[in-house]
């Protein structure tokens, strides 16, 4: 089961590259949803079955895979953002940077003083790589929605790391879910904040001006 989890983690890292290299918003959101679903499955592979585990898995998949992507899609649709037009750094350089950082994550994880049972797993490098990918998205993209996606990816990285701590697992997972909720509120916060700043009113009909030209 653990080796299957490792394969899923490889998939997670590949999704990172998809997000780094793609300009289409809808696609990126679908990618982050897929990443969330995968992350929801992994705890089920690592721990023995229990009602608690089921609830956690279900809630993670629901939050990361359905609710948050839905909220993001909604915001994208209302603000009519199709693609990230002018990132600070282009897509190909970002992809290359992502590759460099992923490699560095593996090097770094090798040198961390980990417990022996964690040494051969992909969790730590995948976690750091995903964290870095989140940072890259945060720093290179201009649109508010991309920023939110960056935060989500960042949080996914932290979540992967939390999976290692089997003892404190329920707490970590619940904290992660809470953080997701925070991101959800963050989305709404940005939307409302921007409208407020532009028009000093919370009028959703003017959402299309959210585009950061």
């Amino acid at each position, binding site marked *: 089961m653990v080796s299957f989890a490792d394969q899923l983690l490889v998939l997670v890292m590949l999704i990172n590259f998809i997000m780094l290299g793609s300009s289409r918003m809808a696609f990126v959101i679908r990618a982050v949803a897929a990443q969330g679903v995968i992350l929801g499955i992994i705890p089920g592979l690592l721990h023995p079955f229990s009602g608690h585990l089921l609830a956690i898995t279900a809630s993670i998949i629901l939050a990361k895979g359905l609710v948050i992507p839905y909220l993001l899609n909604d915001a994208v649709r209302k603000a009519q953002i199709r693609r990230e037009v002018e990132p600070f750094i282009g897509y190909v350089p970002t992809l290359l940077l992502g590759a460099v950082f992923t490699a560095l994550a593996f090097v770094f994880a090798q*040198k961390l003083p980990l417990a022996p049972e964690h040494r051969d797993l992909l969790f730590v490098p995948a976690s750091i790589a995903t964290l870095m990918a989140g*940072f890259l998205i945060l*720093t290179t*993209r201009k649109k508010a929605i991309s920023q939110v996606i*960056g935060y989500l990816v960042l949080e996914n990285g932290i979540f992967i790391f939390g999976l290692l701590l089997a003892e404190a697992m329920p*707490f970590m997972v619940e904290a992660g879910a809470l953080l997701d909720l925070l991101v959800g509120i963050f989305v709404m916060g940005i939307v409302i904040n921007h409208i407020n700043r532009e028009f000093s009113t919370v009028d959703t009909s003017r959402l299309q001006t959210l585009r950061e030209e």
Partner: protein
Amino acid sequence: MVFVWNIDVDPVGSLLWAITLIGLSGLPGLLLKRPGPGQILSVGITVCAALWGMAGALRILNGVPAKTYQLDWPLPFGPCELSVDPLSALFLLPLLLAALCCSLYGLAYLPAASQPAVEKRVTLFSGLLLASMALVLVARHGVLLLMAWEIMALSSWLLLMTDQQSLQVQRAGTVYLLATHAGTTALFVLFSLLKGETGSFAFPAAHSLALGSMVTLVMLVAALIGFGAKAGIMPLHIWLPGAHANAPSHASALMSGIMLKVGIYGIIRTVSFFQQLPVWFGWLVLLLGAVSAITGIALASAQRDLKRLLACSSIENIGIICIGLGMALVGLQSGNRVLAVLGLSGAFIHIINHALFKPLLFLGSGAIIHATGTRQIDRMGGLSRILPRTAPLFLVGSLAICGLPPLNGFVGELFLYFGAFSDGMFSDGMFSDLPLIGFVAPILALVGGLAVITFVKLYGAVFLGVARDPATAHGHEAPLAMLLPMGLLAGLCLIGGFGAPLLLQLVAPAVIQYVGVSPQLFAQIADAVPLQQISLVNGLLVAGMLVVWLIWRFLVQRAPVAASSTWGCGYLAPTSRMQYTGSAFSELVTGLISGLVGAQGQLSGLSGAFPASSRFVTVTTERILDQMIIPSLRGADWCLAWLRRMQHGHLHLYILYIFATLFVLMVWSQP
């Protein structure tokens, strides 16, 4: 289900329940849409919980053994203990009394019916402020104390910002927020070092830490700065006058009467960790106390804002408490237990006293503002006819705060005088020679004299004569819910005066525990102060004054009374503006100490034989804040302006900073 009222309920448990109830008392009001019932419910809960808690605190002072409760929290700071010893109980008692008085007062001062929006906030945050202050007093864990400390700072700030539209309030709030967090930073230093020394955030047992390295000295200084900033010791008092003047009156009463004492508690608690103290520490506290007392009352005498005057007088009283504390610490370091007992008793009694008469005066000032709509002393006058019930209560408070004999303020200061003259009082070798302590007596005398001038000015200008401004002449007496708490506090001031041994009894357990003397020795030392005789004389004085007053009333009722304005030396068109104002009364004092208070008069353009009408304006600046701290901050601002370029508003680059830091740390941490 049957509820059995167990009379043997643990006092600490009852106190913790009371604290919880008070803290949550404002919540039901938030859920109710209609304003009114929530406030009444909150007052009811607070009053009941305060009475319950006071019973618990009194039982602990009576020697009922206190249990220790352990808070089971998931935070990684180790087990967290809550307990109440006589020292905590001594501070909890006035806190709960103030809770009772101020919540009842708020019912009429900020009624939900006329101010629905403000009332909910004030009710909620008053409860939170009270509970967090009490939590500071019962916490035996550094992190819990810091949490409670932060809640205390923020809830008092939110109370202060009640009238948030006013620019003055905004400025006072900003200064307060900055000052309180600067102080909290010092407390972070203190508790991190404590953890380094003892290995845990839990408070060490009393007198268990050896004073050795530099670290412990830094801890002491950090405690003095962090807790001293909250207490309002002199160079750190900058936030105090503005904050106390601009908060709603019952919030000012809480801040001034109780919150400052929580700072003093922190200093005492921290000092109690150490086996022995460096010699200079006690003298430093004493010196700071003396400076605070003199400059505080000097500032107060120059103020023309009613509440600002009371706030400055709080600095003076904190100074007197610090003088007592400093005497006790000097006594402890030099093995002079007489001095330690007298100083600490004086400080503790003054803490209780100040928590009685300062809230009384602030609540009274609220009644005055309620009636006149202004805080300017020079626009009032003749209020004793409009406020016939508030006036005598305010008089009791004013006399008590001056430390004049028939009232409680006298008792605390008397202990300090005895401490100052303790050299030679006992001849059995219990003390070492400390002639310098004698200087405390003239300092106290000077402070007392200035206090009398200040409060004669305050009472005279506000209550006597006739109204200086017609706008202030049409007020009305405060409602019963405001008078009742004031009456209670004034009554306790009187009881403290002619029941002085009661006050000593209250503070005895804490002093005995702190100084480490036997109760017999304590009684022997305290017997040097003739409290019984003093109570008797006080009682006789009060009775005599009552008799004189009755005779005077009898005579006045029979004699014809004519009302007119002050005689203006034969001037043909006298107006009520020609009375002596408060500023005029204190002009001499203000002139003598102008270097300290920075009062400046500006007379514009009087020239020629027939000058046109002109203006004379006096401005009382706050020398330390306006002329030292703000310019130095400006200087720092100028020096560090280049750093502003880092703050350019590009979110991406901010995240890049974090990213870069993370990256550097990852590379750096490689073995």
